[in-house]
């Protein structure tokens, strides 16, 4: 982390931070664009369709065209909506999802990211803020579907935050550090943690899927029940922001997944950033694969599952890890 005591902020270092943030933003947008493209292609193939192939070679510019379309759409704010909250909500959802990327070590050299000593905690704390954006968006729209969608999201994300955090704690215990970079280094010295932390790995996979509101936990956006969930009333750019949040968060979660369980940037032969990219790609592809295969869970089963199955499992994992750590 930036040491404020020894390095007082100067014009040059501030400029460096701004450039870093902009580069990360651009990188994120690129990743988001092509993960959406990849989602549509992959699911298309699974469903025996071709997927986007019209805009640009192999449809590579499809997402760009879609975003452009959203940008030139009319920005509708329902007259009965709570104006201020309605405007704040997409930003509130987007900012934390983007900020957490700052602490994910994308390569061994922290070129544009911060080497924060409390990385994992920082990630979990900030990602929890996204819920407010979603909930406020649903509330402020003054629409019944959006309200139900928003409330569902809030309940779901809160319930799954806890097992998610618990599964992360298992990894932290093993590595003996909350610093994400240290966790990667610890893994590169021993073994990727998805093997010793297999229980935590499973809990993380499930809880992160729920956290991202993806199938089979995509209840907040249950199309057949709720039309489009919390962003039903959003149009144009604000809608794009919610979509962006979803995919940025997916990227961030993939980064966390790679860092915690698959050894982050560490790996033989290839450069660190490439290893990181491959692992992120793996996580994202698994998410899309699940999306193409699974039906949706029911809302009450969802809660039961989180509190009665995942949480005890995560706690059990934690106890085992602690005991083993003390014994070995």
């Amino acid at each position: 982390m930036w040491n404020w005591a020894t390095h007082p902020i100067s014009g040059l270092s501030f400029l460096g931070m701004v450039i870093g943030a902009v580069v990360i933003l651009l990188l994120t947008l690129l990743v988001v664009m092509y993960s959406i493209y990849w989602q549509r292609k992959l699911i298309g193939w699974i469903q025996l369709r071709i997927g986007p192939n019209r805009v640009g070679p192999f449809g590579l510019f499809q997402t760009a065209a879609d975003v452009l379309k959203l940008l030139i759409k009319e920005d509708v704010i329902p007259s009965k909506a709570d104006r201020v909250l309605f405007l704040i909500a997409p930003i509130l959802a987007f900012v934390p999802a983007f900020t957490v990327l700052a602490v994910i070590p994308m390569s061994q050299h922290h070129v544009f990211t911060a080497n924060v000593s409390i990385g994992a905690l920082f990630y979990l704390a900030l990602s929890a803020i996204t819920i407010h954006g979603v909930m406020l968006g649903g509330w402020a729209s003054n629409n019944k579907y959006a309200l139900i969608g928003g409330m569902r999201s809030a309940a779901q994300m809160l319930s799954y935050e806890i097992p998610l955090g618990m599964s992360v704690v298992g990894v932290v215990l093993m590595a003996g550090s909350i610093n994400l970079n240290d966790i990667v280094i610890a893994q590169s010295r021993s073994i990727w943690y998805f093997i010793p932390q297999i229980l935590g790995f499973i809990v993380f996979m499930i809880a992160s899927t729920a956290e991202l509101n993806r199938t089979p936990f995509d209840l907040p956006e249950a199309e057949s029940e709720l039309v489009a969930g919390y962003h039903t009333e959003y149009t144009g750019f604000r809608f794009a922001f919610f979509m962006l949040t979803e995919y940025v968060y997916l990227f961030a979660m993939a980064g966390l997944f790679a860092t915690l369980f698959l050894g982050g940037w560490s790996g033989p032969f290839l450069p660190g950033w490439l290893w990181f990219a491959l692992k992120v790609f793996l996580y994202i592809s698994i998410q899309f694969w699940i999306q193409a295969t699974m039906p949706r869970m029911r809302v009450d089963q969802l809660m039961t599952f989180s509190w009665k199955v995942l949480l005890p499992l995560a706690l059990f994992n934690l106890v085992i890890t602690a005991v083993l750590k003390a014994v070995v």
Partner: protein
Amino acid sequence: MALTDQQQPIRTEEMLLNVGPQHPSTHGVFRLVVKISGETVLDAEPVIGYLHRGTEKLAEDLQYNQIIPYTDRLDYLASMLNNYALCHTVEEALGLEVPERAEYLRVIVMELQRIASHLLFIGTYLLDLGAMSPFLYVFQERERIVQLFNEICGARLTYNYVRVGGVKYDAPPGWLDKVRAFIPFMYERIQMYDDLITGNEIFLRRVRGIGVFDTETALAFGMSGINLRSTGFRWDLRKNRPYSIYDRFEFDVPVGEHGDCYDRYYLHLLEMKQSLRIVEQALDGIPDGPTLGKVPKIIRVPAGEYYSGIEGARGELGFYIVSDGKDKPYRLKIRKPSFVNLQLLPDLLRGRNMADLIAILGAVDIVLGEVDA
């Protein structure tokens, strides 16, 4: 002692929610006014009629063969069965002899149609539950069937194929072989759906024990078809009141045990297999000969009242004709299985939550073209 603010129970409000008519999961234009408290449905009222085209009234101005295209548009997923149901009633009224080959062709297209319709049920049902892929898979098999129909009658959706006294066209050369080639392919695909869907834990948890009703209720509401059979009551008009040449074929009537949404889903799978068996036997037994019997140029049904029902894809599909001896019916009443099956819906929904609403509505299996006529 007055309660303080914190001691008072939380004040909740009921909410009136309009599901439809332009809702993504109502399969057409169907509106459901649900009163919900939280996510629990307190009451539901189906509002129908958005697709009403006055088929029954229109029929009073049409000659019998002219009504057939209108029946195509009732349950547009099972047009062949609708065609046949009308023609069958008229034939019964006239006492017409239908050539053997025509009967066989009818059975083949009707069973293929039943498969196509059931396939779409499975696809849309899974789509309602949030799984998108099966919906796209079923269209592959359905496409093969639709292609077969296209070859025999030149239409993909509204066939107008079955006529009073027979069928319009004989099978083109090689058509029967194509049907035969379709059978093993279809068996394989049914097995695939069984593997893909039936074993999915999430799916099972969503449909088991949901939307349960017993045989008495089903009979009291006049339900038929899979909705009735799912309660364990073995009732299939092809067996119990054989029409056409169904008494010549060997097939089983699968029934459910619990009367829940899972049984209704699974019966669709099983019935497709039985339909394939019938098609197979029909292909083996089909004779040569004419495809249209001796039918008068202008069909005049003798004065009287006639009813006959067949086993449609969704239940008993019946046409009730009142004739005053003219070439047009005095009154035509259609017993629409979708409409009848829909009546129990509010009872099934009460007390369930919103997610079950979709699961139950989907499993009752309605087609709005038929509900509204």
